[in-house]
């Protein structure tokens, strides 16, 4: 009896091993075309330290893929299976060894029992380091009004590990807005929580986060889109009374707009909201604040308010800036318009200055500011040295491209795009050289990207780099938000 069981177990293990073995290329037919792989990593540029670019054939009929990567400087990697799954340590070694060079990828695929070898393609390894541990983002279903599970997460870019910073299912009814760090510093961040346990969470250093009252009537609402002053004392916020309406046709789904919006600066030391009538004008909608990297200017967008829903496509935001004095916490008196988008029949949103002070990357749409529902939304780059602005054709797509952020050395940026399927936003990375030319973007790597992204019914939202892992744990943060007292802010009007 014992031997019988032993034989059954042996046969079972052998069967598992045999099933786990994939075929090797034989009688290979050469095909004069590049392989159609998912994600499209053909000709992309990557930084040293990024997780392995695993991929599959886009064609579901491909049963096995056999991939060999050779470095221009040296080294080789091989993978064979349902998808190309590279050993992480070997991958990192290969990429490190070929910094500044390229990796040539040879792909063979077995389709309907026949092996085909495609043209080799390169993956370029940048000389510019990423210098970031990972990224943070919000993941949320791209739904209309009701949201179920959503949360803030962080992801180690050197592997595939993701952990939750805060998930709304730990505190029912909670909705969390974008997590915003100061120059990718994980010790200083802010985000807004809506719902029963509403608060604006402000964290500086090792002290416990401060929880501000979620709504302040004197600013007309809650603190929504934040951006830190590089000095760390101030944080600019917009306050938005946001509404949605839905299209019955026109190949569009949703219009998101603000019934009112303003921009103000919050002093984290005195807990004071600094209102300035210069950027809080009644007939104008100010939005999307961002400090310049030297802290001397506050950039923001502004539009003449329209009547909704009739004039929904007439609200067009310009990009402006106003001087800011960090020693007094006061704004200057002169507003400069950097991009008069309304004159061109366009609208500017989400200005993000590069940390080296050279560029401002922004999203341009035909109207409005909530770019994720605008398929025409593209990334543009304003060169602050020349004053010239151009579309980033190297990275833009036919779907919405937006929610971008820079890494600390301003050589890399990340953004979300709906190019994958037209609805679910995914994160992409690209680099910018000293002349402002961007490289072909690559999608956030996953262990098995085809299966992962295909099954994922969530959108990535407001991603940003983080220099180090954020130590806050989801459950602890949730309990803290539920139990801690809210701080009343003081409002000072200029």
């Amino acid at each position, binding site marked *: 009896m014992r031997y019988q069981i032993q034989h059954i177990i042996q046969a079972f293990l052998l069967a598992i091993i045999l099933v786990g073995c994939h075929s090797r290329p034989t009688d290979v037919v050469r095909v004069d075309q590049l392989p159609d792989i998912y994600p499209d990593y053909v000709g992309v540029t990557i930084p040293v330290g990024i997780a392995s670019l695993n991929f599959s054939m886009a064609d*579901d009929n491909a049963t096995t893929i056999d991939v060999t990567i050779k470095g221009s400087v040296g080294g080789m990697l091989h993978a064979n299976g349902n998808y190309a799954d590279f050993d992480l340590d070997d991958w990192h070694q290969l990429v490190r060894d070929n910094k500044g060079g390229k990796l040539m990828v040879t792909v063979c695929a077995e389709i309907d029992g026949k092996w085909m070898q495609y043209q080799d393609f390169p993956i370029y390894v940048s000389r510019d380091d990423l210098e970031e541990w990972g990224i943070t983002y919000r993941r949320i*279903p791209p*739904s*209309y*009004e*009701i*949201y*179920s*599970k959503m949360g803030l997460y962080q992801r180690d870019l050197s592997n595939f590990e993701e952990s939750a910073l805060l998930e709304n*299912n730990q505190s029912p009814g909670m909705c969390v807005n974008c997590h915003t760090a100061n120059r990718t510093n994980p010790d200083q961040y802010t985000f807004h929580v809506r719902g029963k346990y509403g608060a604006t969470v402000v964290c500086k250093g090792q002290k416990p986060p401060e929880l501000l009252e979620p709504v302040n009537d004197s600013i007309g609402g809650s603190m929504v889109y934040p951006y830190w002053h590089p000095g760390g004392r101030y944080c600019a916020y917009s306050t938005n009374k946001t509404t*949605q*309406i*839905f*299209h*019955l*046709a*026109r*190949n*569009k*789904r949703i*219009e998101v707009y603000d019934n009112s919006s303003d921009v103000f600066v919050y002093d984290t030391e005195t807990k004071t909201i600094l209102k300035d009538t210069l950027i809080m004008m009644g007939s104008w909608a100010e939005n999307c604040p961002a400090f310049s990297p030297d802290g001397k200017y506050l950039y923001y967008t502004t539009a003449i308010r329209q009547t909704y*829903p*009739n004039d929904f496509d007439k609200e067009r935001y310009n990009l402006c800036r106003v001087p800011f004095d960090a020693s007094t916490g006061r704004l200057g008196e002169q507003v400069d318009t950097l991009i008069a988008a309304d004159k061109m029949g366009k609208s500017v949103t989400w200005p993000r200055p590069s940390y080296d002070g050279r560029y401002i990357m922004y999203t341009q749409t035909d109207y409005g500011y909530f770019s994720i529902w605008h398929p025409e939304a593209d990334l543009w780059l304003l060169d602050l040295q020349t004053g010239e602005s151009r579309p980033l054709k190297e990275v833009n797509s036919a779907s919405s491209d937006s929610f971008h952020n820079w890494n600390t050395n301003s050589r890399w940026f990340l953004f979300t795009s709906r190019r*994958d*399927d*037209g*609805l*679910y936003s995914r994160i992409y990375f690209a680099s910018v050289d000293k002349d402002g030319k961007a490289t072909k973007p690559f999608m956030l790597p996953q262990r098995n990207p085809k299966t992962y992204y*295909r*099954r994922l*019914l969530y959108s990535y939202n407001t991603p940003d780099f983080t220099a180090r892992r954020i130590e806050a744990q989801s459950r602890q943060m949730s309990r803290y938000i539920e139990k801690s007292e809210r701080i009343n802010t003081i409002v000072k009007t200029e």
Partner: protein
Amino acid sequence: MQFFLNPFNAALIYAALLILAQYLTSRLLRQFFPNLKDTYRFLLSWVPPVIMWRVAMIPYIPLTPTIAVLLLMGMVSVFMSVSSQWPKWGRWIGACLLIPVCYWLAWPGVDYDWSGEKQMGTYEEMECDMLMRMKDWHQISDKYRVQESPAVECAVQLALYQTGRMSRESLYQTIYVPRGSRNRPSVFNVGGGILTVNFGSLTSAFMVSDMALMLDLPNVAQWAAFEVMEYIPNYNKSARSIKRLTETAIITGQYPLAKKYLSILEETLFYRKWAQSMRPLVEQPELIKEKPYYQQLKKAYATSEDIFFI
């Protein structure tokens, strides 16, 4: 589980589960109480299946807790067989320790977020929804005389139209209620150039999605299907919603999106065949012309006026 889509399979699954429950109970009684008379054991072995059958009849309680209990019973039974040489007290303690082990194994798959009638919908709505899906228009129009639910009321109007007892024009006049013209809530309200669509529960939202497609409103059908998926209390996703989203993606020309949804549905038990039959339409959209149902909806979508709805 939408068992009514295939009642034969559903009956087989339930019968198998209940027989398994009876068998495991009988086995456990023999293992724990070997001196119990056969007659008592036989009678007692029917208690869990009867309780499970009663629980399964409550529409708000999912099937997963029942399966978790069966899993526990099975594990305890196997443990009792394996530990037959152990002392009696050791077997009892071991069996008790299996409860937390089983809980640890099964908890990710168990639905804890049971919802009540308010969220899931009334029995009337569930029944009407089922009849709508089975296109039993005669029964809908004959059965629901006094409707408390706006969704059921709307379904009856559609049933009258579908059975030829109401013209398309009359249907529109009845279904699109001018805002503020009556005290009772209704599904579709019009006024001020905006269409307001209301649904009260998860089930009625499903019905609204079905009805919107019948009224040539694919974007409303899409909206309702999306919202209903987010309305599911345990954060799960709905294959029925994904099926509807596939249809609306095809109608509105979002083929890569439809492909994604089909890939998900092809991995499901009840929707695989449908997904496989739809794949050619997504890979070669020109084939949609051969499907009058989708072709007509595509045409209506392309030519309809774009007003807003909320």
